[in-house]
Structure formats: structure tokens, C-alpha cells
């Protein structure tokens, strides 16, 4: 075996990580390496690209299985409803700030992804009890997740209406959940039951809007950014 490490004296160096029995190759579980990729076994170029929507492929990627035909349209609706996040949200605001700083487009996308992942984490935290109920709906519908204000109730109703058109049915929809709870409920019911998969789906749905909002800003145009929003009141320690 080759020992690439040597000390200042030229002596061969070995340490705990050299002796430990690690595997010698990376494991691929989702995409086959090489020029003709398969995604969870499906030929991407000859099969998936020709027969499935981007949302279907995303669902397959995250769950390992294609969505049932009757759920595919519901997923598309859920992703479309999830996509718009305005600059009022910190996730998109952060991307706009990155662009304002004049960073590269790749780092702007990176900042957007970090911030959207944080937003999704908080969303999932806030809906932990809802997801637990969806997994085992033995008790009454959790009232915390029922749309309370008129605007949210209306948004939730529009989602129910769109889902009804494509034949998506879930008993909890009649309880008039909040828009966010309903969207997570649709994803969960379709099969995105793991927290990481839900976070990834939310971030993936929203990334284009965050990036587009950032790209709409002129690079390094500090004078057009509301620097004093919010105003900071500096208080020295007594």
C-alpha cells in the first residue's frame, strides 16, 4: 500500500485514519455514474425526459419512485403554489442583498439556497405537529393549522379548488387548513413524507423565484437598496 504522507524528516506518517477500515469507493444510490445516467434505475434521456414532467422527476429523485398518475398533477399544483416567495421574505431579501453586494451569480444562488433552506426549516418546524398528525391522524384535526384569517382561508380555498379539478382527494382538506399546511399536506399525501425530502421540495420550488428576484436587481447598485430598512438603534452597554 502507498503511504503518501511523510514528515519533515522524510519519515512515513501514519495515523488513526490510515488504520481504520473505510470503504475504498463512494456509494452511488440515486444516479448511475457515467455518460448514460439512470435515475433510481430509470433511463433519464430515453425514458424520463420523454414521458415525465420536471415535477415527476423531482418526486422520483426525492422518493425513489415515480408519482402515481393521479397524484402527478396535484404535485405540479403544489409546486406552483409553493414557488412564489416575495422579497418581503428574508430568503429572497438575502438573495437580493447578495446581488447588491456584487457577488457572483453562483454565490447569489448559493445565498438564496442557504436562505431558502433556512426558511423551509422554520416552516417544517412550525408544522411538525401537523406532519405528525398526517402520519397518524387518530385525533381530531389540529386546530392550530386551520386557516384563521380571511386572506389565508381564501388562498387555501383556491388550492382546494385547483386540486379538485385534477381529482386530488384528502379528507383533511375539508377542515380548511392554512395554505402552508395544505401544501405540506399535499406533498406528504403524495409520498414526500421525510423531513429532508419536504425541505428539498420546498427549496427547489422556490429557488427560481429567489434567484429571479435577485437578478432583477442591478449588480452593486447600493443606492437603489433600502439600506435603512430597518433602521438600527445602537445602544451602548451601560
Amino acid at each position, binding site marked *: 500500500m502507498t503511504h503518501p504522507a511523510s514528515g519533515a524528516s522524510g519519515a512515513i*506518517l501514519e495515523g488513526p485514519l490510515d488504520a481504520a477500515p473505510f470503504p475504498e469507493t463512494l456509494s452511488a444510490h440515486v444516479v448511475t455514474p457515467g455518460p448514460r445516467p439512470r435515475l433510481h434505475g430509470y433511463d433519464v434521456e430515453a425514458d424520463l425526459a420523454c414521458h415525465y414532467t420536471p415535477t415527476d422527476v423531482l418526486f422520483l429523485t426525492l422518493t425513489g419512485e415515480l408519482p402515481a398518475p393521479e397524484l402527478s398533477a396535484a404535485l405540479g399544483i403544489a409546486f406552483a403554489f409553493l414557488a412564489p416567495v416575495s422579497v418581503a421574505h428574508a430568503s429572497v431579501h438575502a438573495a437580493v442583498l447578495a446581488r447588491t453586494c456584487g457577488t457572483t451569480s453562483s454565490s447569489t444562488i448559493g445565498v438564496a439556497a442557504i436562505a431558502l433552506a433556512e426558511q423551509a426549516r422554520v416552516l417544517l418546524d412550525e408544522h411538525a405537529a401537523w406532519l405528525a398528525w398526517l402520519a397518524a391522524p387518530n385525533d381530531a384535526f389540529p386546530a392550530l393549522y386551520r386557516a384563521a384569517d380571511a386572506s389565508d382561508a381564501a388562498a387555501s380555498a383556491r388550492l382546494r379548488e385547483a386540486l379538485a379539478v385534477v381529482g386530488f382527494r384528502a379528507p383533511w382538506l375539508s377542515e380548511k387548513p392554512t395554505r402552508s399546511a395544505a401544501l405540506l399536506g399535499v406533498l406528504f399525501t403524495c409520498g414526500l413524507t421525510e423531513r429532508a425530502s419536504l425541505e428539498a421540495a420546498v427549496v427547489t420550488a422556490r429557488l427560481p423565484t429567489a434567484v429571479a428576484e435577485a437578478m432583477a436587481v442591478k449588480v452593486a447598485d447600493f443606492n437603489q437598496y433600502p439600506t435603512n430598512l430597518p433602521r438600527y438603534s445602537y445602544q451602548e452597554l451601560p
Partner: protein
Amino acid sequence: MSPPPLVETTRSAFWASDEAHYHGHRVFKELAGKESWTGMMGLSLFGRKIPPDICGVLDDAVGALTLADPRIWPLKLTRVVGSYGGLLPALFAGQLAEDGARIGPWACVEAAKALLLLHAEIDGQQDDAEHVSQVVAEYRRKHRFVWGFGTPYRGRDERVVAFRRSMEQRQRSELPYYRTMNAVARAMKEATGAEPNIGGVMASALLDMDLEPLEVGATVVAVIQHMFFSQALESTRAPNLTLRELPSEYVTYRGHEPRTSPRGRPL
């Protein structure tokens, strides 16, 4: 059958059985308890132990560069992401926004590149004002602007004043790149009225330490990190829920008017 081992050479570090090695030094025998925080950062950035006077310059830079107002854009970005409550995402999102940016460490990288070119053209004649003016004029003809100059929102960069004082006290103001910076500053002032900013002055000080432009950027990232920690900690200790989602009156929509898609139109 196992594939042949892939080998990548590193001069940074190795975890050996006897002890950890770092840039050619035994960590516990030669570094731990002997090198300061700045010394360890210097070793990481320069790839070699740095003498106490260089440590002193870096320590002075940390102080002089402390302009940590939460409205400074990358720091504000840290606070905006911090409104979700995650410390490291906030910390690193702010720093990621400095990659290639017009302000912060990458402005120093660009200033270092400019200074290298100007230094070569000035060719040791920093005291020849006419020659320096010609070099600067030629540079300005070829480039959109001279990185390291210009101080937005005020007449001069107060950090430059503080850092120059320390450079003089440490008797580093006669070093080659620093002299070039001062010579270029005089020519720029005469030609455009622009004052040097901290990016330009830091770049010259770091070039005098034999750093490459990329290492200049990395060193500036290191010496301004404390401000990101401060903003990230404060903003995540008590997340600002208003910043998490600004009330609608603070957003003005300037995009498309409402319209209906071709597929959404009634048949």
C-alpha cells in the same frame, strides 16, 4: 479488485499517530501554547509561521477594519438570514456574498491585482511624480476604474487613517508596495480627486508580505470575520420576525402588470 489509490498532495496538515502535523510543524510540540490565534491564522493563510511584527500588522488590521454597522450590506445579509435563527447559515451566507463582490475582501483582491500592475510599471520610481502620473493615466485609459480608490458616502475612508497610523508606527510605510500605493494615491488625487480606500491600502500592506492576490482576499476574509460573528450571534439569539417577513407596506412592486397566460384565458 480495489482501484489504485488516488493521491492528492497536501502541505496543510496530517493526523498522524504521534501527533497532528500542520504546515510542517508538530501541533502539540511546536504550535499549541506557543502560537497566538493570529499566529495560527497567519500560518494557515501564509503557509508559514509569521513573525511577531506581521502578527502585529494583522492584529492592527482587525481593529482598523472594524466597521460593523449592521447596515453594511454583507453584514445585513447575515442578519437577514439570521432572522430564521440558524447561526452558521447566517454567518456563512453573509461571507459567501463577498465572493467576487464589489466591496469587502474581493475588492482587495482586485486592488492587489491593480497594484501589482502599477507597481511593475512604476518600476521603483515612486518618487517621480510625473512618471507615476503617466503610469496611472495609462492604466486608467485601459481600465474602467482603479480598484482601491473611492470612498462612497464620505470624503475619506476613516479606516485608512487608522491603518496608516499603525503602518507608520510599525515602520512598514516605506515598503515597496505601500510606497507604490501612496504614490498612486497622490496621482489619483490629482487626476480624479479620489482617495484610497481600505481595500487598496490593505492590499499594498499584504503584498508587502509576499502574498498573492487570492491570499490577500483570504487574509481580509479572516481579519473581518469577527464582525460577521457579532451580527450572526446577535441576530440569531433573538430573531427579528419582522425581518423574516417584512410588512407589505415596506415592499414596492415594480414588475409586470397582472396578465393572464395563454392557457388560462377562457376559450
